[in-house]
């Protein structure tokens, strides 16, 4: 079996237009996936490292702090111990001071999972070359993505402005809400990690929505139809599912544990 290699240029009888087919000539495709899809996977792998670094930092810093050991009803915010999440995230838009522990974040989780579903539906429609369906499901995904971003904006704003009771500081004043240097919920790093982790995730969602809008425009213009395949939707879809996947972990480690 004479396999042409890169060391031996193709014989003159082979025209230069013929693609090389040898194992070490680019003729082999061990992963059976296109270049673009593979590169998206490797980008997501590197992105997973970044998010893992954030969540590992969260775990390390949280374990460095004291744990509140009393009954959940007796819990008060203090810089001494790490706050219990359902005491921090217990507000719902339009319900004022009502105590809805983790209610809003449950809704946000549902919205993001739904957006993932509509994204798969768009990819599925792309496989069938069904332009109308691709447009429809892309629009739904953009809508859910934008709704998630708006929810996160509300969540941030509530976190920054704080609960009405506030926290009594050492100098006798009451502090409400949070910034990077001080917060009413617990140790300084609690709010910092909240801003960095959910902020970095939100930035990813924002980038995803921009990419989806671009995909929608390209679909509408018939770019993918002319190209003969909707692989771009699959690649952006991989990114979008990854963002959903990261939220699954942020949700567990920031809100549940």
């Amino acid at each position, binding site marked *: 079996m004479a396999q042409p290699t890169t060391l031996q240029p193709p014989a003159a009888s082979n025209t230069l237009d013929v693609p090389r087919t040898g194992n070490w000539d680019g003729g082999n495709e061990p*992963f059976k996936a296109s270049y673009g899809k593979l590169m998206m996977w490797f980008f997501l*792998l590197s992105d997973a490292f970044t998010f893992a670094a954030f969540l590992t930092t969260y*775990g*390390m810093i949280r*374990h460095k702090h004291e744990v509140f050991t009393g009954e*959940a009803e007796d819990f008060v915010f203090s810089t001494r111990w790490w706050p*219990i999440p359902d005491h921090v995230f217990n507000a719902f838009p339009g319900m004022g001071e009502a105590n809805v522990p983790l209610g809003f974040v449950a809704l946000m989780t549902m919205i993001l999972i739904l957006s993932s579903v509509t994204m798969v539906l768009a990819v599925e429609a792309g496989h069938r070359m069904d332009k109308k369906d691709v447009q429809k499901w892309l629009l739904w995904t953009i809508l859910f993505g934008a709704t998630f971003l708006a929810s996160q904006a509300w969540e941030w704003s509530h976190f920054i402005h704080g609960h009405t009771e506030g926290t009594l500081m050492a100098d006798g004043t009451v502090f409400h809400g949070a910034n990077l240097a001080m917060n009413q919920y617990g140790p300084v790093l609690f709010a910092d990690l909240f801003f960095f982790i959910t902020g970095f995730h939100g930035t990813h969602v924002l980038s995803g929505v921009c990419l989806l809008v671009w995909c929608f425009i390209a679909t509408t213009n018939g770019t993918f139809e002319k190209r003969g395949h909707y692989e771009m939707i699959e690649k952006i*879809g991989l990114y979008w599912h990854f963002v959903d996947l990261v939220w699954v972990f942020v949700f567990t480690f920031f809100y549940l544990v």
Partner: protein
Amino acid sequence: MSANATTEPTLAPGEIAKPNTGWIWKIFGVLVGITAVEFVFVFLMHPSTLRNSIFIVLTIMKAFFIVAEFMHLKHETKGLIWTILVPVSLLVWLLVALITEGSFVGEVMQNMFK
């Protein structure tokens, strides 16, 4: 799930195949179900290492369904699957190591002036 593959017979030119979306909604149901179970544990169980372990197991289950089915990794070649899974699994080591380190640092600092 072989349902992912488009297996419809020959189509007339310009005709569009029927959508095959049952499996997508099934996975959606699974993901919603697992999230609901997580909330049951939030409200019915006091915080403990056991409860945290349950959350982590359920999270990994959700991650499996998203990556395997939605991101289609289960249907890629073995080489690609391992290429993604091996580096990610090393991160678990980092997480465990640094959390242990954090507990130790916290303990040292609390006992420093005793």
